[in-house]
Every structure is written in C-alpha cells, then in structure tokens.
C-alpha cells in the first residue's frame, strides 16, 4: 500500500501536527484484549435470554400458535407473541425529529406476516440454549398467502409507487431523439445483506422506570428518541449505550423490532433480557440493500458531449414501509448535462424493510451510471477516461450551486497515471498474459458530504488530562481516535492523556454514524467545546488568586499543556485548576448543520485490472488504484483503511454478493457466512489509494468531508467495465459470476 501520495493541501487552513497524522486507534488495545464491551457482552445479574420464533412463510397470517410445550421446557420464563405482548406505540419515524425507525410496524403488533424470518413469537428463558430449545417447540400454523418474491413479481402484481429524490432539468426526452449517439440499457442489482461480524444484539433492563439498553446501534440518540415514542415515556428516562459495535454498514442505523421487543419484555418480566439476532435472521429482520432495476438512457452530440441523460430506478421495498434506494442521487450532478431526468420508484415484495447499506443509492446507482457511461463512450467512439474528463460537471447543475471543492479531474488523472491507463489497448480481449486475458476498467466515484447539528462536551481536568464526550458512535471507523486528535490539536494535551467517551445517549447529542457525516459533524463541535473549556480555563487563571490574576484572558495563549502570558510566564492547566480549587474547566458547544451555500461533495476515481482465464472460467480482480478527494484527511491510517475496506466491499458487490430468494416462496436461501459470498483475503488484490487531502474549509473548519462510503461507489462499475474490456461481455446484472461469462453453457434439462 502506498502512503506517499498526500498532496500538500494548503487551502489556507491551519495544519496542526496531529491532524492528518496516522495516529493508531486509541481503542485498539481494548478491542484486541477483549475489554471492549459489545451489546451482548453485558451480563447484568438475573439476566434472562430471549430467542425468536421466526415466520417460515413470507406472506399470510398466524392462524394458530401453540406455546404449551415450549412453556414446559427447562428454564422457560415466558413466551410472548401477538396475543401476549404489551401495548406499544409506533414512532412517527421522522428523520427531522430524530426518531426514525426503518420498520415502523411494531413487533407482535398483529397476526400478519409480511416476510419470512419475521418475529412471530419470543421465548425468554434462563439461558440462551434453553431459550433456543424452547423456541423450537413453539408450534405455529399459518394461513399462508402467495408471496411476492422479487422485483419483477412485484411490478407485475401491483406496479410501482413514486419515490423521493427525483429531479428533472431541460427536456431529456426531446434531446435523446435524434442525438448523434444514444444508448438505452437496463441494469439490475440484487439484494445485498450487510453481514457485520457482530450480530444485532440488545441487552435491556429497567430500574425505577428507567430503561437502560445496550444495543448494537449506529445512533444512540435516535434510538433513544424512537424508544421514547414507542414506550410513550420521556427520553430522559431512557439511556441507550453503544460504546462499541462490531460494524454495521448501515444495518444498525435505526432501531429494529428485536431491540424494541427486548426492552418491552424486560419491562414485563421485571428482569434484564438479552437478545442476539441469529445469523439467518440478519438476512430478514434487520434490513438489507434492496434489489434494483435501473434504466439508463444517454445521448451525446457528435463530439461525445452529453446532451441527454435519464436514470430511472425501481427498487423493492416491504409491504409495511416505503424505502427508496436513491440510485440517481449522484447522477444529478456528476456530469454536465442540460437535459436530465432522475426518477425513483418502489415496488412491494415480501421481504423485510430495506435500509441504508454503505453508500445507499450511490453504490447500485453508480454501478449503473458508470457502466452506462462506458457504454456511451464506446458508442461515441471516445476513450472512457477521456469521455469522463470531457463531461465531468464543473458546478452542481442540479442545485445550480458551485461545488465547495472539487478535484475530480486531478483525482482521475493521478490514479490513471499511477495505474498505467495509457498502456490500455482499447481492443476487447487484446491484452493477454499467459492464459489470462487482462481487462482495464475505470469509473468515477462520488458521495455527498453532509454535516449535521452536534453537541459536545470537553473538560480539561485537574490531573492534566482531557475528557471529551459526545453521543455519537465509533462503528469501527476510528471516531474515538479522531476526536482525541481534535482535543489534542486544540488544547495541546497529548493524545494519550485524552479520554473520549462516545456511544451513550446521556452525553451531548451527537450524530448517527452514517452518511459519512460523523467526522465533519463531530469534530467542529468537539473543537468548539475544547475552545470553550480553554476560555473557562483562562477565566479561572485570571480570576482572584488565579495564576494569571494580573493578566487579561485575551493576553494568554495556550502552550505546552498550560497557559502562557505575554511575558513568558507559563503555568500548567493542572496548576491553574489547583490554584482555583476547581476540578476541571468545562466547555460545551453546539455546531449547526451544513449550510446550503455550496454543493458539498466528495469525488474520486477507481481504476481496476481484472484477469479472466477462460480455460477455467476464473475471474479475479488483480489491481485497484483509487484516488479520492474527501477534503482534509484527519487520520491517514483510519482514512486509508476506510477506502481500502470499501474497495474490498466493492469487489464483493461486483463479483460475489447477492442474497438469493426462492422465487416460489420469497425465502432467502443463502442466509449464512458460507453461502453468502463476500471477498476473503485470497480475493484481495493490490490496492493503492491516493488521498488528495485538499481541505474543504468552506464545509467546516477542519475541511474534512468524511470518507466511509465513497470508496465503494463506482467500484463495481469499474470491475464491470474491466470485464467488458477483457471478455467483450457487458454484464448488466450483478454480481458478475463466472457462469455469466462462460460460453457454451447448455440449456437446463430440468428445473
């Protein structure tokens, strides 16, 4: 992995030594030693265990539920179901109010079954094994109805419903007809399941009408607010903890039925309850990236300039909620095109409610768009790299705004040069190496930069340490570490003397860890709170009996873990606090969501080499070179890790990942780690990531735009484009498996 590519970003921003440094994760030792406690690691006294009974049909009603045998099983405390469950209330599920849930239907609300793997009963017992054994003795009879198993069945059965995020400018239809070059192509992407290592889990208990829940959550504040609505009680009486989660990729953004059920039955039973969602139900009841069908119609003039672009997307959603996969979100602004239409529609199928999965919308959307752009370049007779350089937008034409900072041309050119794009022989199948045919492909990547409102608290303490807290989370990305870097940057206190606490809803309200906005949202609030703490420190120092009683606060500067006056007198924070008999100097701060003066986006490009061995039908990704423009890089190590991980996930999207449903009954078939394929180490190519590192100070004082998602966008298209270059086959349906590339596959003789 190369690490010598950082530009000297000098957009006028300050550049402390610790910001940008590859500081090791401060939570690493806790994770490696097992001290880090995840939701299911909490074992309060008198804990009981819940295990679900899950629907084995995808549509219908529970006609009879026999729990007597289960109740007789060893250790069973109670068996809950729609006829025996406390009354709860739905959350309004408002993003703006901060109480969003994805599946609005409450667990055990009624006897209806909307998807296979839906909770239909819940057994609570003294041990996990007893709960599971008893759950299997619950007999459920269903009145099954015919299930809608996939997108095509849904469209055929009941058509589509208009979604959100639509956009139109100019007249795309009129400018398509009669254009010099046109393409009209349809792409399909399958359901993908997040499959974080840590399964969803909740441990809940009640003390004096206060609910405490450790939940595998990417958003403790929103979870608290949603539970507040669901249990009709003040948010102050609920604390949601998620100090560590074993990745989420979006599946843990919002509260799912199991967490609600855990809290509810804990209250009913008057004892702590823990529930771990089994791996098969991670494929059913905790969200997924939905199936999409996307039609792309592009047209250029004779010179290869886009004159018309239409991106029409349909995605599957559940019968209980409308989830829109905004596949055209990037299409609106990546390329300059005066006549452009983006539309989103949904169709209902018998699956659980979908949810955001890493780069929602953009990941499937850019597979389609960036494949189509290659097809368009081909039709126009232009090199796909040159086509993009010719057509990249210079301003956000969808919002009629300037980009705050956009270096996509440099990113594309630098990655191309390092990759060796100039060596590409454009003729399909022409680049051979022994038995393998080499293919080169590229694609742009893109992600909106977002910043939410945030509160934070920082204390500088009498023992010379600093303490920062914010109710955001570290979902494995490095948030603990970059918060510590920020505190250190502002106060000068060394990072090993900074304690960071996240993942507790009782801390100042912080953002959901999603959308790649945690960095841009949290760091300015932390910095502002740290400065407020320093201001407090200066007031203490200049007060009566203060260390700088004769000085003005404004005359003091921060230096070497203390304050220094104009005459060079230096006193440590610890001594200042000691003199004033204060335990700490505290600062709290609030920072606002991003303004709308600019279009804030991150940019980049992927270059991929695939190798196809037709003699054994083996396709592999050999090299990925990516250049990413995400504003300032706060932590070289964790940032690079995010892009590399996203690239690997993108390879999985391109070659392997698909949740397969039986079209006869809508049941997910490959619902485990052995059969749901993601890349393993042996599949990982040489990955070279260039981080451009141009601070975007129009966006926030640190100039950081966030980096968790952009790396997966466009990657599957770059793979598909490389596959086309190698094989001549344009695969428009993910994943690109070997059987789709083979010649002479016979017809099936049976089903």
């Amino acid at each position, binding site marked *: 992995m190369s690490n010598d590519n950082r530009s000297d970003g000098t957009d006028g921003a300050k550049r402390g030594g610790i910001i940008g440094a590859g500081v090791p994760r401060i939570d690493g030792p806790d994770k490696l030693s097992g001290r880090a406690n995840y939701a299911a690691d909490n074992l309060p006294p008198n804990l009981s265990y819940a295990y679900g009974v899950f629907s084995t049909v995808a549509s219908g009603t529970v006609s009879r539920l026999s729990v007597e045998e289960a109740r007789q099983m060893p250790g069973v405390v109670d068996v809950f179901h729609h006829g025996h469950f406390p009354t709860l209330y739905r959350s309004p599920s408002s993003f703006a109010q901060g109480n969003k849930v994805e599946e609005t239907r409450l667990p055990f609300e009624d006897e209806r079954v909307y998807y296979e793997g839906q909770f239909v009963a819940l057994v609570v017992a003294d041990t996990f*094994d007893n709960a599971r*054994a008893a759950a299997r003795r619950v007999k459920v009879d269903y009145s099954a109805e015919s299930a809608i198993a996939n997108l095509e069945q849904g469209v055929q059965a009941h058509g589509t419903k208009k979604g959100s995020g639509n956009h139109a400018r100019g007249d795309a239809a009129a400018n398509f007809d009669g254009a010099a070059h046109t393409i009209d192509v349809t792409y399909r992407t399958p359901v993908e399941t997040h499959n974080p290592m840590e399964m969803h889990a909740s441990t809940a208990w009640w003390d004096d009408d206060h609910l405490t829940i450790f939940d595998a959550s990417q958003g403790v504040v929103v979870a608290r607010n949603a539970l507040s609505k669901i249990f009709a009680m003040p948010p102050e009486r609920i604390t949601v903890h998620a100090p560590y989660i074993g990745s989420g990729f979006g599946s843990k953004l919002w509260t799912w039925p199991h967490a609600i059920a855990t809290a509810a039955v804990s209250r009913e039973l008057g004892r702590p309850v823990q529930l771990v969602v089994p791996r098969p139900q991670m494929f059913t009841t905790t969200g997924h990236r939905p199936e999409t069908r996307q039609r792309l119609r592009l047209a250029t003039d004779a010179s290869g300039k886009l004159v018309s672009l239409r991106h029409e997307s349909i995605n599957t959603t559940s019968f209980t909620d409308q989830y829109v996969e905004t596949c055209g979100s990037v299409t609106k602004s990546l390329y300059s095109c005066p006549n452009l239409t983006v539309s989103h529609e949904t169709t209902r199928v018998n699956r659980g409610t979908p949810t955001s999965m890493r780069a929602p919308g953009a990941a499937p959307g850019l597979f389609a768009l960036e494949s189509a752009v290659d097809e368009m370049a081909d039709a126009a007779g232009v090199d796909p790299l040159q086509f993009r350089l010719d057509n990249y937008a210079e301003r956000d034409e969808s919002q009629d705004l300037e980009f705050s900072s956009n270096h996509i041309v440099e990113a594309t050119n630098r990655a191309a040069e390092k990759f060796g794009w100039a060596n590409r022989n454009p003729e399909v199948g022409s680049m051979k190496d022994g038995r393998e045919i080499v293919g080169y492909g590229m694609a742009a990547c893109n992600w909106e930069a977002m910043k939410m409102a945030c509160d934070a608290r920082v204390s500088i303490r009498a023992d010379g340490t600093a303490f920062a807290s914010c109710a955001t989370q570290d979902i494995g990305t490095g948030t603990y570490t970059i918060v510590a870097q920020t505190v250190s940057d502002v106060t000068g206190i060394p990072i090993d003397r900074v304690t960071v606490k996240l993942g507790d809803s009782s801390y100042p309200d912080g953002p959901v860890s999603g959308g790649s906005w945690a960095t841009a949202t949290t760091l300015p609030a932390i910095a502002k709170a740290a400065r407020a703490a320093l201001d407090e420190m200066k007031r203490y120092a200049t007060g009566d009996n203060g260390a700088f009683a004769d000085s003005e606060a404004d005359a003091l500067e921060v230096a070497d873990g203390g304050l220094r006056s104009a005459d060079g007198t230096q006193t440590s924070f610890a001594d200042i606090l000691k003199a004033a008999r204060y335990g700490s100097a505290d600062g709290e701060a609030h920072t606002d969501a991003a303004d709308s003066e600019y279009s804030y986006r991150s940019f980049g490009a992927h270059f991929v080499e695939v190798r196809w061995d037709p003699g054994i*039908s083996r396709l592999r990704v050999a090299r990925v070179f990516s250049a990413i423009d995400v504003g300032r890089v706060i932590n070289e190590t964790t940032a690079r890790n995010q892009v590399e991980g996203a690239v690997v996930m993108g390879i999985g999207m391109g070659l392997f990942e698909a949740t397969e449903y039986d079209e006869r009954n809508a049941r997910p078939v490959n619902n485990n780690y052995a059969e749901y394929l993601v890349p393993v180490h042996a599949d990982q190519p040489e990955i070279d990531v260039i981080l451009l590192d141009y601070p975007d100070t129009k966006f926030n004082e640190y100039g950081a735009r966030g980096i968790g998602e952009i790396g997966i966008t466009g990657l599957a298209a770059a793979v598909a484009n490389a596959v086309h270059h190698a094989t001549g086959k344009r695969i428009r349906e993910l994943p690109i498996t*070997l*059987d789709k590339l083979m010649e002479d596959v*016979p017809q099936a*003789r*049976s089903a």
Partner: protein
Amino acid sequence: MRHFDYARADGTRAAIQAHGSDDEAAGYQTGGAAYLAGGTTLLDLVKLDVMQPDKIVDINGVALDEIERLDDGRLRIGAMVTNTALARDERVTADYAVLSQALLAGASTQLRNKATTGGNVMQRVRCPYFRDGVSDCNKREPGSGCAAIGGVNRSVHAVLGTSESCIATHPSDMCVAMAAIGATVEVEGPDGKREIDFAEFHLLPGDTPEQEHALKPGELITHVVLDAPMQNARSSYLKLRDRQSYQFALASSAVIVTLDGNTIRKARVALGGVGTKPWRAPEVEAALEGKQASEALFADVAKRAFDNATAYAHNAYKIPLGQQAIVRNLVDLTQSVDPTAA
C-alpha cells in the same frame, strides 16, 4: 439446542458400546446416537436443529490419530487424524500430492485443524433446503420432496448422479482425491470389523437420499487406507469456485497420471462439486490410457464424464466448468506447466 446424553469414549470398543446399534433406523436424522469427532458438521447441524441425536459419543479420546505405511505400500490413516495433519504429512505430500492439495483447498485453517479424516468422509451436504429445517427435503424428511429442484440450485447442487429425490453435491474435497487414489474404509461395529471399498462407501441418492453411506447402525470408521501410490505418478487437485478460498467447489478434479514420454499409461480422474458423491470418472480414464497427451484429447475425453449429466435451472454451467477442471488439470500435469498457476 436440544438436550442429549453425552458420553466420552477412550477406546473404539467403548465408543461402539456407548453408541449402541439401534440408532439411525429413522433415517439418521432424529433420535439415536451420533459419533462426535471434529464436530464441524455435527455440531453445526445440531445447533440448526437439523440433526437431533439423543446421544453423542465423543471419540476424541479414541487413539485413532496415527498414519502408518503398511507393508504392501498402502497408507493407513487413523480416522481422527486431522485434515491439517494429513495434508502436511510428508508421506502424503510425497506420494499423494492430490490429497494434500485437496485438503488444503477445503474449508479454512480453523476448520481443517478440527476436522478429521473420518468426519470428512461423513460430511453432510450443504444444500440450503436440507439445512434450513423447513423446506421439503427427502434427506431430512423422507417422502417430503426436494425443494432444490425448482429452487435455487446454482452452487451446491449436482449434475451427475442426481435423482428426482435429491440433487445435493457431496461437499468434500478430500473424498474426491481419495476416490481418484482408491482407498478402503475400515470400520468397526457391534458385529466386529469389516472393510468397505471407498467407491462403494458413499451412496447415490436414488429414491433413498436419507441413506448416505454404507455404514451399518453403530459402525465407526476407524481408518481410511489409501491404495499404494502409482509409481512415477504425477497428481494434482484443481478446484474451481467463485471466490478463491472458503467456498465449496463449483467443480473440481483430482487427477493422477503416469506418463511414458508423451503417452499416458495410467490415469485416475475423480470430480467434485458436480456429483452427488465423490465422482470417479472411469470412462475418462479409459479414454486417456494409451493415448498421446494433447489438449484436444483432453477436451474430447472430458466431455464423456458429462454424457449423462442433468442440468438444473441454475447449474448448467457446471457441465462445461467440470470439463474445464479436467482439461486444465491434465494439461498442467502432462505439460510440466507450473500447476500452482491455476
């Protein structure tokens, strides 16, 4: 997990006694006793509630972990020898490269460290309709039907040896190599010891897919004895799959050849990932022996292995893929191309 009795045996006889012989009458699925070796199949399926034994006899204390060379040149492998130990054994790497490669192509390091030789022979199918505990499955519930036919059947379903009752592939890589090498399974049961030809050990599904092997109730595999190695043989295992590790074969070949110049004198070919049992291909072997090695010959003979293949909705590609596994393996073995390149 359901409750079951647990017994730990310190010897073969004790294990057989503890196990008893009245199990498996109900199709090996519910009730009865099961031997526990590495547990990589059994414990998974018990946790999934697919296997529901009343009793588990743990044989990890039974001393069956030796590999010995017999006087007649055969290699006798104790049933409790782990996949890792067997793959790394010098006699195996020297004389049976195909077996070592097949073992290392299977599962993951952690699983290979636990999985045993006898347990691998007894490995059960990966068909999701068998493992889900709900779908129609004649193997799990005789007479209920086969949900894989007409369902999702791309990866772990066969094109050879299938029936209207079951189309699941036998998942083992090790067994494919053993099928090519030739072997004898030594078993011991309530009625004493006997030997089963490896080729006869695994059963085709026919209309009794719940009958997977030739063991009688209570019998325990004690050893697998490999045939003596062919003199001057070259052998190799080639496994084709979607990802490069930790996936069951979509198609694989175990090939052993001896050459006289460019003439193939002897050939042994077995296939994995395409058959309902470890699939020896004698018609391919016969068509190779005595012929001049050439890619054209290989392509021609590979077709014969699939003359009677049945393709299902999603796995027709296994017919050409299986042929590719044969051809490439033969090309590499006969043309001195670096076999690790594949």
